[in-house]
């Protein structure tokens, strides 16, 4: 049985933004272009999980798909974030190590492209995540938590980090994608600095990941338009 390598990311859909998933099946110095089987799933809070298996991908050959073209009916009426799962395996070489493959998400808007790596959930896991969050009069920040396990988990976010009026803030259901805005009070407890980018509130966050199947991303949005401006894979 082939070993399966599993990446998790999120995508976004509205009238101006489409999402592409690019992948590069890679196994170090092996130059043979063995066939690679790809299983793609999309899921979210407002629709059922849909999964397709695609053939035609090959080892050491980059490829990509635009989700809006693969799932046109599902996404045509949908606006917002949703989850993406991508699994790669090499049936002809079941023991091939594909852990150094790359899977990238591209959010393609009219003015800009945001690109970030999907998270591989097979590999050794860092349960303690650390980073910087910030806000300004033009910028808000949030954390996206995705649960691709079959069970409900606590979302691992410490008390006070995200806005308390958003419910539920601590339960992360199976197959759910939560975006949780970082609280102004939390940011105010850090630094208040005038930088070359203007006045900013900046603070550190520390997350305790409850399981490898829980994946986090840090987002920044334009405060006025709510457009995504920056994404970091955690």
């Amino acid at each position, binding site marked *: 049985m082939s070993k399966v390598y599993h990446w998790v990311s999120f995508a976004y859909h509205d009238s101006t933004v489409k999402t*592409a998933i*690019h992948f*590069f099946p*890679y196994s*170090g110095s092996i130059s043979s272009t063995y066939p690679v089987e790809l299983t793609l799933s999309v899921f979210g809070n407002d629709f059922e999980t849909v999964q397709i298996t695609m053939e035609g991908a090959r080892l050491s*050959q*980059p490829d*990509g798909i635009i989700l809006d073209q693969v799932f046109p009916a599902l996404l045509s009426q949908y606006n917002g974030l949703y989850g993406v799962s991508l699994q790669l395996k090499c049936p002809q070489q079941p023991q091939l190590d594909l852990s*150094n493959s*790359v899977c*990238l998400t*591209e959010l393609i808007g009219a*003015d*800009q*492209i945001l*690109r*970030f*790596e999907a998270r591989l959930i097979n590999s050794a896991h860092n349960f*303690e995540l*650390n*980073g*910087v969050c910030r806000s300004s009069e033009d910028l808000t920040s949030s954390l996206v938590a995705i649960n691709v396990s079959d069970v409900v988990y606590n979302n691992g976010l410490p008390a006070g980090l995200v806005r308390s009026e958003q419910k539920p803030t601590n339960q992360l259901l199976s197959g759910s994608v939560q975006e949780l805005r970082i609280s102004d009070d939390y940011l105010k407890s*850090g*630094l208040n*600095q005038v*930088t*070359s*980018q203007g006045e900013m509130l*900046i*603070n*550190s*966050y*520390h997350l305790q990941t409850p399981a490898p199947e829980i994946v986090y991303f840090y987002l920044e949005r334009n405060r006025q338009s709510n457009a995504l401006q920056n994404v*970091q894979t955690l």
Partner: protein
Amino acid sequence: MKNYPPLGFNLFNSQILISMQENFIFSDSNNISKESSASVMSQVAEYSRSFFWFAADEYFQSTLYISPARQDAHNQHQIKIYDIDGQLTNQLNVKFVHGLPGLVELDGLVSNCKLQAGIRQGSVEVVSAAGTAHSCEINTSNRELTVSPVCKLSREKAGFFPLHLSTKSQNMIALNSLGQSDSMLKVRLYTGTRSPELEIKIKAFGAENLIIEEEFAEYLELDPHHDQQAYLRIVSYTSNDLSVRLLEQKYSRTNFTQQVME
């Protein structure tokens, strides 16, 4: 602990412990690295070490963000600046308030760094206690320019970028090497049925730029009306850690180099 006067750069929530302008003597960069690392490492058994390409001039602002580990009692960090040839041009140690993040705007620290492709650029190295998170944000006043997140690569992990090629854009990769020896890389472009490859060398601690449309010009048939999907794969043949950023310039008037030189 001595407080040094402002050095003409913005450094927030911090106290400068050592600055190169005050007490640094030029010598071989490899030796400097060992000595400096030893002084910081004597305080912590394990450490976090990061290495970023930066650009800092009138078009680019690069800012280093440091988020301390939860258990880090010192919140002290060593920062080194290298130019594109890998020569150490500046270094400082900073100490932030306990438990709080800090940021360092690099513009004022990099005046000794050389220009390449019209950009003042180089590499910044940060060494901190284990568990510290580092990031380097590059902002640009040019709305048509996008700078990708950092992609780290090694002998095991290849770099990978989707490209949108057209006559109305230009793509540049900025590579830098953390190694104390030269790094050899192969950069392969996948466009249609073609996959040309070229080999490049990066000096120890140095940086290198590659403008895709120029380096692979003979293999490209660009359409002014449609973007052409292509991919870039970068493989390292040495054991050094490397990082890559992709800079995508959409333009209507001039090409990338002309724009930054204007």
